C-alpha cells in the first residue's frame, strides 16, 4: 500500500513526561563504552559547566524512538511493524540532555513516500522540557520493506 502524502505534517499529541535520571545516563554511557566522567560524576559535570550530569549525544533515542513509534500505530499509516527497519537518524541538539530534565516528546510526520514498493516515513520528534525549552530534535527515517 502506498503511503498517503496527506500524512505529511500530521502531528500527534505530546507524550507523557520522561524524567531523565542520573543512573539511566550512567547506564547508557556504560553500554556505549564511554568512560567520560561528565556522564557519571556530578562534580565533573559541574566543573565542565553543566548543572548536572549530561547524557551522551545519542541518548536522545531512548526517549525519541518510542515517541516516533506512535506513527506506526496510526491506522491511516498502515505499516506493519515487523517489516520496519531504521533507515536514517539525525539529531539536532539545542543543548545537552541532563539529569533532572523532564522531557516531553511531540511527533510530526516530516515526509512520507513509497519508492520501489518500500514505504519510507520520516518522523520528527521534538524533545522539550515540560516548560517548553527546546532540547533536541530527533528525526528518524523508517523503512518498511515491500513484500516481494
Amino acid at each position, binding site marked *: 500500500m502506498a503511503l498517503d502524502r496527506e500524512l505529511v505534517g500530521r502531528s500527534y499529541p505530546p507524550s507523557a513526561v520522561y524524567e531523565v535520571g542520573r543512573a539511566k545516563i550512567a547506564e547508557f554511557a556504560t553500554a556505549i563504552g564511554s568512560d567520560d566522567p561528565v556522564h557519571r560524576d556530578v562534580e565533573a559535570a559541574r566543573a565542565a559547566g553543566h548543572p548536572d550530569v549530561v547524557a551522551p549525544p545519542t541518548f536522545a533515542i531512548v526517549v525519541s524512538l518510542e515517541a516516533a513509534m506512535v506513527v506506526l500505530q496510526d491506522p491511516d499509516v498502515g505499516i506493519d511493524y515487523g517489516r520496519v527497519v531504521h533507515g536514517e537518524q539525525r539529531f539536532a*541538539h539545542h543543548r545537552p540532555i541532563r539529569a533532572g530534565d523532564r522531557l516531553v516528546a511531540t511527533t510530526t510526520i516530516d515526509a512520507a513516500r513509497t519508492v520501489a514498493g518500500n514505504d519510507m516515513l520520516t518522523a520528527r520528534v521534538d524533545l522539550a522540557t515540560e516548560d517548553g525549552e527546546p532540547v533536541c530534535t530527533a528525526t528518524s527515517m523508517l523503512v518498511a520493506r515491500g513484500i516481494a
Partner: protein
Amino acid sequence: MSVGAGSIEVGSELPEQVFRVTRADLVRYAGASGDFNPIHWNDRTATAVGLPGVIAHGMFTMALAGRAVTAWTGDPSAVVEQHVRFGRPVVVPDDDEGAEVTVRGKVGALLDDGRARVDLTVTSGGDKVLSLARAVVTLA
C-alpha cells in the same frame, strides 16, 4: 583535552578508533536503550528475517561513531548535530572476538560560530556500514 578552533582546518583528521563489539555489548545496549528487538540477540529470529546472523543495533553503531567524535573534541556536549544513514548491518558472531567497528573521520567544513562539520567513515570487516555519517561540533 579539547580541540581548539585555531588548530584545525578542512581535511584535519580525527584519530582512528577501533571498537570491538560482542554479543554481551548488544545485550547491554538493548537493556540501556530499551530496544529489545530479537534480531540483536537471537540468531533464530535474525536468520528467519533473512539476516546472516545477529546484528548490532544501528543506534549502537551511531553511538560508537559519536564516541570517536567526542574522544576528539574531549567534550560530549560539543556535538550539536549528528546524522547517519544505515547502509549495511554489523554482523556480530557468537564468540569472544565479536565484530570490529572502525571509525575514521576528517573535518569536511568549517562553519559559522566556531563550528565544524566532521565527515566519518565507519566500517566493519572492510565494508562501509554507515552510508552517510556526519557530525557538527562546536570547537573550543
